[in-house]
């Protein structure tokens, strides 16, 4: 079976107050996560206060953009086109929800190496998806 990738209609992210840094970086094709200077741990999705220690001494780090598929699902009946929802663990150790794109969707597998690629949404902010590396 072959399930070709088609671009779904991605709803634009709606940043909450104070969250513009991440999404401005996305417009420039840069994927950010947060690192806590107090406890030394990184996290995603990014919070102003570290979820491990509550410190507000967190800083942005740009990801290399490569990772591996932790899990995924070829979603066949939720909208006009099939798409692959996934969790990807970045090389830096944080895991993010994403889509796997630009491939035969039936070839996606756990442990697969992937690299970030940005896809357009219904608004100005693109989102970080991943294609086979």
């Amino acid at each position, binding site marked *: 079976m072959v399930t070709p990738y088609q671009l779904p209609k991605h709803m634009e992210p709606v940043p909450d107050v104070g969250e513009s840094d991440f999404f401005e970086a996305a417009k420039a094709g840069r994927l950010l996560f947060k690192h806590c200077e107090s406890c030394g741990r990184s996290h995603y999705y990014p919070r102003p206060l570290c979820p491990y220690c509550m410190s507000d001494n967190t800083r942005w780090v740009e990801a290399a953009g490569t990772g591996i598929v932790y899990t995924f699902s070829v979603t*066949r009946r939720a909208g006009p086109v099939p798409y692959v929802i996934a969790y990807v663990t970045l090389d830096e150790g944080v895991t993010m929800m994403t889509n796997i794109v630009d491939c035969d969707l039936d070839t996606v597998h756990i442990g697969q190496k992937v690299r970030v690629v940005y896809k357009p949404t219904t608004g100005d902010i693109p989102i970080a998806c991943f294609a086979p590396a």
Partner: protein
Amino acid sequence: MSMKGHAYIVGAYEHPLRLAPGKSVSQLHAECAKGALQDAGLNLGDVDGYFCAGDAPGIGPLNLIDYMGLKVRHMDTTDTGGSAYLVHVSHAVQAIAAGRCRVALITLAGRPRSEGSSGTVVRNFGLTPDRPYEVPYGPVTVNMYAMAAMRHMHEHGTTREQLAWIKVAASHHAQYNPHAVLRDVVTVQQVLDSPAIADPLHRMDCCVVSDGGGALVVVHPDIARSLKRPLITVLGAGEAQKGLVSQNIDLTTTGAAWSGVAAFAQAGVKPSDIQYASIYDSFTITVLLQLEDLGFCKKGEGGKFVADGNLIAGVGKLPINTDGGGLCNNHPANRGGMTKIIEAVRQLRGEAHPRVQVPNCGLALVQGTGGSIGTRHGSATLILERE
């Protein structure tokens, strides 16, 4: 310390409708409340505590208290999704033991079927902090649980056939429930051949969407002994939240690993003592993960445990969801915890359908989840005993 004897479940009612186009959510709540109070042999004026969750229209409990004409001195609107009603039972026992109320009413109702709800659309929970980082990727209910199933298959070799047995068991039970949405007995092959929704879950791995609701009445021991209903007590309870702190992603474990341990410890019993279990079955995988996390089998061995009819009443070692569960019977308001408790009460009273009744059922477990095991979810466990 066990909660035994602090309070008793004396009223339980499941709304008979599964499609209710002509009834409001509020009316369904009120009809469920009336049914449970009648079942207990109590009246509107006896209620002095009210519990509801996010399915109740209005500001917490305020609008429905007004709508139903209640006069209460204790309110609790803890919302943990579909597991909330298990939490309410536990909190009601605590409130009664603390003298905060003597007759606690818990209601749930909804009409997602009439409103066209589906597990294949992105749900809107408002401006949650995670929303902008998840919603654009299309996280619908089904694919979130599908990702947990995919990972479990990868780590433990679980098969679609094994998952299908959970649906097969539900269908064997549902054939005896005249109110069930789906009453046909199905085979493993039929589950495998049903349409793929989100790999590896197919349509028959998913619960029904139904209108309706249910209600429970939990009372002080003095009142319970004045009524004519069997005495069902809570021996132990646990509640937990499991989320996604990003360095520790683990979609093959649910909050049952914590709420279950707490409930068993408080009850002073072990999984092998349980005669009947209601296990939340939003999807087949939900059941498998919770059975492992509750300790009915080891982590990773859920596939073998659920196969070959082991969950079918009269056939297997652990009969579950003898009303047909969410997979076949009912999933009102997209929140299955209430109906799970109700069927456990039926089993302990000896009021389940004779073909699925567990003989001399004296000890039952109820396990609920709510939210999404693919992101963040609530888990609650109750261990109930008939005195």
